[in-house]
C-alpha cells in the first residue's frame, strides 16, 4: 500500500505559546527511547520510520493489553489496526486511554463483511449505475473471524498525528460486546448508532435506544442483507432501460 | 337627561371625552407607524446593511411598512385548539388599551391636553405622571393573559419572564421619576413642562431648566427602565426570539399579532414622549410663547420624541440580551439603590436651596 510522503513536518513556531514547552524542535531525530517513554507528550513520526513507529506502538499496546488479547494487526493507510479478543475490548480501551495517551475518541462503528448485494437484486437488468462489488466474502486489514466486526478509532490530542484502530469480532448469532461508555463517555451515541444500524448489543450501555431512526423502526439498515429500498423501488434516474412512469406514453417508454 | 349622560367626573375628565378618545385612537397607530417606519425599517436597515426593507416602492423602500400592514391584515387568525379562547382574544386588547390610556396625559402645548382641563389652572391631570405609570402596568396583565391562554410552554415562560421583569422595573421607573416630581413640585405633566420652561439654572433662564441637566441620573435610570418595560433588547427576554421563539406572542397571528406590535411601538412612543416631557421640556422651546406654542408645541414634542426614540432603538439594535438573573440583579442591586440615592440627594438639595 502506497502512502503519500510527508511534505514536511509542522513547524515548531506554529505552535501556540500555550504548549511551547512540549515541542520537539524540527531538527530532532525521533528518539526511540523518548517515544517508548510514556510521559513524552509529543511524538512526531517520519515516513521512513513509520513502520517502526507502528511496531513500537503495537509493542506497547501488546504490553498493556496482553499478548493473548491481540489476534492480528496491520496498517490501514497511516494507522495501526489491531484486532483484539472481544473479551479484552474494554480493557484495551482503558489501556489506550490511560497508558498510551489516546485520550480522544474518534468513533465506534461496525462492519458487515457480507458482500454488497447488487442494487435491485441479482437479477436486476441494466442497473449498472451501482458499482459491482466482489461476490466473495473477504476481510480487510487485520482480518476477521466472521461476518460482524466492531471497530473503533481512538486518537490523541497530545500524541499528535496518529491514532489506533481496534477491531473485534462478534458472533453472528449473538453480537454482544461490552460498552466503552465507562471509558470514553462519547461512545454513548456511537454505540447507539451502531446498535440501531447493525444490531450489535453493547453490554453495559446505559440506554441503547434509537438515535437516528424512529423508535418503531425494525431491522438493521447498514447490514448488507438489508436492501436499499430506494434502489429496489425506483431504478437509478437516467437509466435508459426504465419502466415508464404511470401516465407517461407507453410507446415512448420502449420497454 | 343630557346631564345624566355627561357624567361629571372630577379633574376635567368629562370634557369632550369622545372626541379626544378618537384623537388618541388615531394617534397611537400613527405613532407606532412613524416609529416602525423610521426606526424599525429605515434606521435598522441602514445599520445592518439590509437590502429587503430598502427596496419596495422605490425611494428608500417607502412601501415596505404598508406592505407589512397589508400582510398582517390578510393573514389567517389562528387560535390554538387548547387555548382559553376568551382570554386569548382579550389579551392583545388589554395590552393596546394600556397604551391608549397612557397617551391621554401627554401635553402637546399650553392648551393642547387631551385629558384633564382648566380645572386646576394649568390643565392636565393632577396626578399625570403617576397615572401614566399606573396604567402602563396594566399591560402586564395582558401579557400574562396572552402567555397563559396560549397553552404553550414557550408562551408561558415568556409571560412569566415578562411579569417578573415588569414588576422589577416598575420600581426604578417610578423612583426615577420621583426626582423630577420633587424638583418640579407637581405630578402634573403640564406642570412639569411649565416648571422646566420657567425654570432657571443658577439664575439664568435662557433655555429654562430642562431636567436632563439636573436629573441626568434620573434620565438614565428612566431610559433603562423604560427599555425594560418595553421588553426591548437588552431586556427582551419575554419575547427572546432565539430562546422562546417569540415568548408570549408565539401563538398569535395576523391581526392579533399586529395589535401586540402596535402596542409595542405605541408604548415606545409614549415612553419616549414621557421622557421628552419629563427631562427635555416637553412641548416647550425657548423663544416660543403664547398662542403660537399650541401649534409649534406638537412639532417640538414630536422632534424630541424622535430623538429619545432614536436612543432607545439604537440600543435595541446594538445590544445582546441579558440573562434573566442578570436583569433582576441589575434592577434590584443597582438601579433601585441608585434611584433611591438620587431621590435623597434631590430632596436634600430641594430643601437646602
Amino acid at each position: 500500500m502506497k502512502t503519500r510522503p510527508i511534505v514536511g513536518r509542522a513547524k515548531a513556531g506554529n505552535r501556540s505559546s500555550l504548549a511551547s514547552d512540549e515541542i520537539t524542535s524540527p531538527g530532532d531525530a525521533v528518539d526511540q527511547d523518548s517515544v517508548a517513554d510514556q510521559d513524552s507528550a509529543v511524538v512526531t513520526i517520519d515516513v521512513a520510520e513509520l513502520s517502526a513507529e507502528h511496531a513500537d506502538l503495537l509493542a506497547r499496546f501488546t504490553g498493556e493489553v496482553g499478548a493473548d488479547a491481540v489476534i492480528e494487526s496491520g496498517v490501514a493507510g497511516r494507522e495501526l489496526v489491531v484486532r483484539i479478543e472481544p473479551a479484552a475490548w474494554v480493557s484495551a480501551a482503558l489501556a489506550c486511554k490511560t497508558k498510551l495517551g489516546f485520550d480522544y475518541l474518534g468513533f465506534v462503528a461496525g462492519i458487515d463483511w457480507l458482500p454488497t448485494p447488487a442494487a435491485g437484486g441479482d437479477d436486476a437488468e441494466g442497473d449498472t449505475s451501482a458499482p459491482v462489488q466482489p461476490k466473495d466474502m473477504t476481510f480487510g486489514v487485520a482480518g476477521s473471524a466472521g461476518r460482524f466486526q466492531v471497530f473503533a478509532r481512538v486518537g490523541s490530542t497530545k500524541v499528535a498525528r496518529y491514532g489506533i484502530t481496534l477491531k473485534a469480532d462478534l458472533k453472528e448469532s449473538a453480537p454482544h460486546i461490552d460498552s466503552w461508555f465507562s471509558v470514553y463517555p462519547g461512545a454513548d451515541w456511537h454505540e447507539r448508532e451502531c446498535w440501531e444500524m447493525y444490531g450489535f448489543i453493547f453490554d453495559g450501555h446505559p440506554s441503547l435506544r434509537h438515535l437516528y431512526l424512529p423508535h418503531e423502526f425494525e431491522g438493521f439498515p447498514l447490514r448488507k442483507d438489508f436492501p436499499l429500498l430506494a434502489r429496489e423501488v425506483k431504478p437509478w434516474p437516467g437509466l435508459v432501460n426504465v419502466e415508464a412512469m404511470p401516465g407517461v406514453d407507453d410507446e415512448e417508454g420502449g420497454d | 337627561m343630557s346631564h345624566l349622560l355627561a357624567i361629571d367626573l372630577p379633574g376635567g375628565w368629562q370634557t369632550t371625552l369622545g372626541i379626544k378618545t378618537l384623537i388618541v385612537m388615531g394617534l397611537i397607530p400613527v405613532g407606532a407607524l412613524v416609529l416602525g417606519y423610521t426606526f424599525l425599517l429605515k434606521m435598522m436597515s441602514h445599520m445592518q446593511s439590509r437590502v429587503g426593507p430598502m427596496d419596495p416602492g422605490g425611494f428608500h423602500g417607502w412601501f415596505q411598512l404598508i406592505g407589512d400592514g397589508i400582510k398582517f391584515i390578510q393573514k389567517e387568525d389562528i387560535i390554538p385548539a387548547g387555548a382559553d379562547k376568551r382570554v386569548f382574544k382579550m389579551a392583545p386588547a388589554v395590552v393596546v388599551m394600556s397604551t391608549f390610556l397612557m397617551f391621554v396625559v401627554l401635553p402637546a402645548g399650553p392648551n393642547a391636553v387631551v385629558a384633564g382641563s382648566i380645572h386646576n389652572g394649568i390643565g392636565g391631570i393632577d396626578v399625570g405622571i403617576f397615572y401614566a405609570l399606573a396604567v402602563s402596568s396594566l399591560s402586564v396583565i395582558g401579557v400574562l393573559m396572552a402567555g397563559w391562554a396560549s397553552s404553550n410552554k414557550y408562551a408561558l415562560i415568556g409571560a412569566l419572564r415578562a411579569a417578573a421583569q415588569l414588576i422589577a422595573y416598575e420600581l426604578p421607573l417610578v423612583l426615577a421619576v420621583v426626582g423630577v416630581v420633587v424638583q418640579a413640585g407637581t405630578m402634573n405633566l403640564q406642570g412639569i413642562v411649565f416648571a422646566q420652561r420657567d425654570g432657571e439654572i443658577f439664575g439664568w433662564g435662557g433655555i429654562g431648566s430642562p431636567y436632563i441637566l439636573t436629573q441626568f441620573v434620573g434620565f438614565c435610570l428612566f431610559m433603562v427602565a423604560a427599555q425594560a418595560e418595553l421588553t426591548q433588547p437588552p431586556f427582551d427576554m419575554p419575547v427572546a426570539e432565539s430562546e422562546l421563539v417569540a415568548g408570549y406572542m408565539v401563538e398569535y397571528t395576523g391581526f392579533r399579532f399586529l395589535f401586540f406590535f402596535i402596542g409595542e411601538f405605541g408604548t415606545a412612543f409614549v415612553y419616549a414622549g414621557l421622557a421628552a416631557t419629563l427631562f427635555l421640556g416637553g412641548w416647550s422651546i425657548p423663544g416660543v410663547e403664547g398662542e403660537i406654542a399650541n401649534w409649534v408645541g406638537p412639532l417640538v414634542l414630536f422632534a424630541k420624541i424622535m430623538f429619545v426614540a432614536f436612543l432607545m432603538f439604537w440600543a435595541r439594535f446594538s445590544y445582546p440580551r441579558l440573562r434573566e438573573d442578570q436583569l433582576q440583579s441589575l434592577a434590584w442591586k443597582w438601579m433601585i439603590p441608585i434611584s433611591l440615592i438620587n431621590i435623597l440627594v434631590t430632596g436634600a438639595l430641594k430643601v437646602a436651596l
Partner: protein
Amino acid sequence: MVAQNVAFWIFAAFMAVGAVRVVTTDNIVHAALWLVLVLAGGAAQFIILGQEFVAWVQVIVYIGAVIVLFLFGIMLTRAPMEAEEKLNNNLRWPGLVAALLFSGTIAWAFIDEWGNDNVALTKPVRTKEVGELIFRGYLVPFEVVGVLLLAALIGAVVMARKD
C-alpha cells in the same frame, strides 16, 4: 349628583358580578382575572369620589403588582389550563351566611355613623392634600404600616429560604 350615582351603580354592578365570579369560577386564573375587574371597579369608585391619587394607587399596586404576583405564582407553580373540580368546596351556604353577616355589619356601622350625609364631591382631592395628610397628620401610622410591611417581607423571605 345623579350622574355620579348612576355611574356608581353601574360600576357596583360590575364589581358584584366580578366578585361572585371570583368565588364561583372553576379556573383559578379566571378567578384572578375576575378579581382585576373588581379592583378596577374599586379604582373607578375612587375616581367618582374625587380621589384620583388613591384610584391610581389602587391600579398600580393592586392590579399592576398584587394580581400580577398572584398570576405569576399560579403560573410558576402549576399553570392549570383546565377547570379544576377540586377548586370549589361545599361551604357555599356558610359562606353566604358569613358574607351577609359581614356586609350587614359594615352597612349598619356606616349608616349608624353617617346616616344621610352626602359626600362632598364638588372638588377633587389634590395629591398635595393627600401628601400633607400622610406626612403631617398620619405620619406615625404611616411609618408603623411601613415597618409592618417590612416585617412581613422579611418573614416571607425567611419562610421561603430553604437553608
